[in-house]
């Protein structure tokens, strides 16, 4: 490196240099103000005193190879000069970012590992521009992505949320809860208040899942769904199924986090199976629902709950998000019952939910 050579020939330089070492072996000197533009290098110098000599060169993260370091230093060299106009900076950035996609990804990676946020933003924007408006096939081709999703997984994105089995499940649960509450009111002081349901969790699980499969509201073929349900319970698939007619992937789609179904495994911690879903409001709602059972319910609150549940059951398909919010805010006012992971307790809570029609 020329800079390194110079350093050897001229012992005393006015500028100070910082030594950097990449994982692919090259060690080089860089002007201090340029190198310090990177937060990571800055920290190494200031906090650990590294980089002052060749033997104490700062080891750069693995994702920064010599080529990328060179690019990054070019970037830093330009931007660390104060007083550049916005126009100048933009112009430089635009020219700088012109490179092939592979290199762009590498640069993003390197910049990220050096915590150089402006450059990460710049490269991320460039990559976003590449992704924008393209079909998945095109994107896969540009970035050499493996096409490793099964056809089912790809088709999970659905158009019809009214077929959401979870929503219908909630619907049913709420209807039942209402009934349950009424019955409990009647039987409040009798021993029959507690229902011992000694079905195993497995049965409950398959009941829920099976029931979803049985619902008449699903427009798509039921058989396929049922079979898939059983078959895919343990796999990474969603509860849903694609509709008969599929829109091309580019149009409106969504995805359900497929890991959720993984949780449909018999386990004591499984409360209503939906507890594990990451969606908070759903969680909160269900917590509220279950928590209610164990609390003493005063009539006013109960009436309110009844109304809520009725409302919910009636309007669920059209505006459940809003409902959830209302219910959530109601639930938040009450103390939330925390579910314990204790086997027995959970089962009991399960049991108290009479899922049998």
């Amino acid at each position, binding site marked *: 490196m*020329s800079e390194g050579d110079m350093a050897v020939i001229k012992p005393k330089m006015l500028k100070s240099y910082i030594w950097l070492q990449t994982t692919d072996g090259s060690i080089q000197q860089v002007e201090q103000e340029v190198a310090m533009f990177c937060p990571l290098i800055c920290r190494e110098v200031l906090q650990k005193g590294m980089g002052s000599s060749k033997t104490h060169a700062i080891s750069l993260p693995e994702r920064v190879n*010599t*080529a990328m370091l*060179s690019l990054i230093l070019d970037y830093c060299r330009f931007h660390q000069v104060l007083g550049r106009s916005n126009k100048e900076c933009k112009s430089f950035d635009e020219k700088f970012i012109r490179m092939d*996609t*592979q290199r762009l*990804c*590498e640069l*993003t*990676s390197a910049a*990220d590992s050096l915590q150089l946020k402006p450059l*990460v933003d710049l490269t*991320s924007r460039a990559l*976003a*521009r590449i*992704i*924008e*408006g393209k*079909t*998945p096939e095109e*994107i*896969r081709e540009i*970035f*050499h*992505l*493996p*096409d*490793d*999703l099964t056809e089912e*997984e*790809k088709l999970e*994105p*659905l158009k*019809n*949320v*009214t077929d*959401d089995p979870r929503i219908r499940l909630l619907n049913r649960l709420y209807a039942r809860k209402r009934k349950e509450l009424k019955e409990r009111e009647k039987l409040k002081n009798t021993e029959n208040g507690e229902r011992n349901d000694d079905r195993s969790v497995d049965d409950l699980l398959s009941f829920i899942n099976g029931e979803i499969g049985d619902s008449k509201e699903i427009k798509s073929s039921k058989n396929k769904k049922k079979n898939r349900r059983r078959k895919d319970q343990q796999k990474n698939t969603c509860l849903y199924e694609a509709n008969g007619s599929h829109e091309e*992937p580019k*149009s*409106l*789609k*969504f*995805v*359900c*986090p*497929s*890991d959720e179904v993984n949780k449909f495994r018999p386990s004591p911690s499984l409360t209503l199976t939906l507890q594990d879903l*990451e*969606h*908070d*409001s759903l969680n909160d709602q269900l917590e509220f629902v279950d928590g209610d059972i164990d609390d003493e319910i005063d009539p006013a609150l109960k009436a309110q709950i009844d109304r809520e549940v009725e409302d919910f059951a009636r309007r669920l398909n*059209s*505006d*459940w*998000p*809003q*409902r*959830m*919010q209302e219910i*959530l805010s109601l639930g938040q006012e009450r103390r939330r019952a925390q579910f314990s992971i204790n086997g027995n307790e959970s089962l009991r809570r399960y049991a108290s939910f009479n899922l049998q029609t």
Partner: protein
Amino acid sequence: MDFNLVTGLMSELEAKRVKDRISALPDAVLCHILSFLDRTEDAVTTSVLSKRWKKIWASVPSLVFCDEDNPDCVSFVRFVDNVLFFRNSTDIRKFHLQSCCVKDFARIYGWIGTAIRRNVVELDLSVEDFAGDDDHPRVFELPESVFTCKTLMVLGLSSNFITNPPTSGCFPSLKSLNVQIDHPVNKSVEKLFSCCPVLENLRIGGSHGMQRDDPILNFNVSAPELKTLRIYWSSCDVYEKCCKFHINAPKLENFHLWQDPPTDCFLENSKTLVKVTITLCDPLHDNSAEADHRFAIRGTALLAGISSARSLYLSAHRLKKCCLPTFDKLSRLELILYNCYYWELLKELLKRSPNLERLVLELNECKCGESSDHQWIPPRFVPSCLLSQLKTISVRGFKGKVDEMDVAKYLLENGEGLKKMTIYYNDHLCMKEELHKQFSMFQWGSVTCQVELFADIREANCASFGMF
């Protein structure tokens, strides 16, 4: 540099291995990339790319939904529902919704509620429903949760809406508000502007007056921390309804006003103004004395309110009968002169700006019917700023006419502190030589002054000469 050598080696080595480099980036970076996409649909599309990409979209903190391109309302609604439902529980930083087909406003409330519960910082809503009467769209009421949201810092509203801000605890963190009001159907938007305690940035845009029963809006802006205010207001004055703007913003520094035609706008108590831009467009169809009178009153009030400005850009017809205040702190003045009111305004402003250092003039033709022959009558006393403070003068649209030359001569002769005068002339008459000659013949009040003559900017023709 051995950069090329290195890259050459590398590409050689990896030519066989075509790597999926982008998937090697950490989740946070992939998410960051997706957050730059303009539409959430694009982000969700990536969920089918590969296993790695399946769930990245769910953490993208910014959501942009727009149904303009999508005429199918039902699928749009479902899409938004699904995205919100299947997203993981990370915060939503930005939520933009532009909807003109959703009829069920309750659904929209639900979406907004979700965003608020996810600690939204930037919210942009444009909700219209033209389902009913085309002239009277259904009106969207802003839910109270928007007003009380603690994380909301940037809010954009663009539609006819009903607002009922609570009396306290309103917009606790809102720093930036952008409201676009086109053809308002009710007056409730007025309440928005005095309930933002920490607002620093406000933009009001809109148009008004097309319908006979458009309400007259009285904008009462009262924001103790406001630093920048932009108003873009156009009204069709057919029914002679004039919206009023009353602004109480003691910390205001930047004020930009664009009105067509001018309406009442008054700044009370703004003593720290730095940069002011005023553009008042001419009410073309009204040349009556009454209109003039109205203009005069409004102009006077407006200019009185901005008298503390340090930098002023003023473009207004018909300021002749206004009473100008003294601009004590004004050091830079950019003045667009229309030939309906030319040199009088310049004289008045120079007289009243004792500390003016930079003067920029733009000479424009104007179609308001007055003759374009003007005479420069020098003021009785040379303006004090010209004698000492004024350092640079720049004139655009110079046509070499008699009165313009007179003005230039006057300024040069009396500008004792003048360092530079730049004239941009319209070169259809190839006047370069002539101008040179004339300018050289003037007596210059400042020995160090430089005069530059440029033909219209497109031609980089420049002749510059000094006294010696």
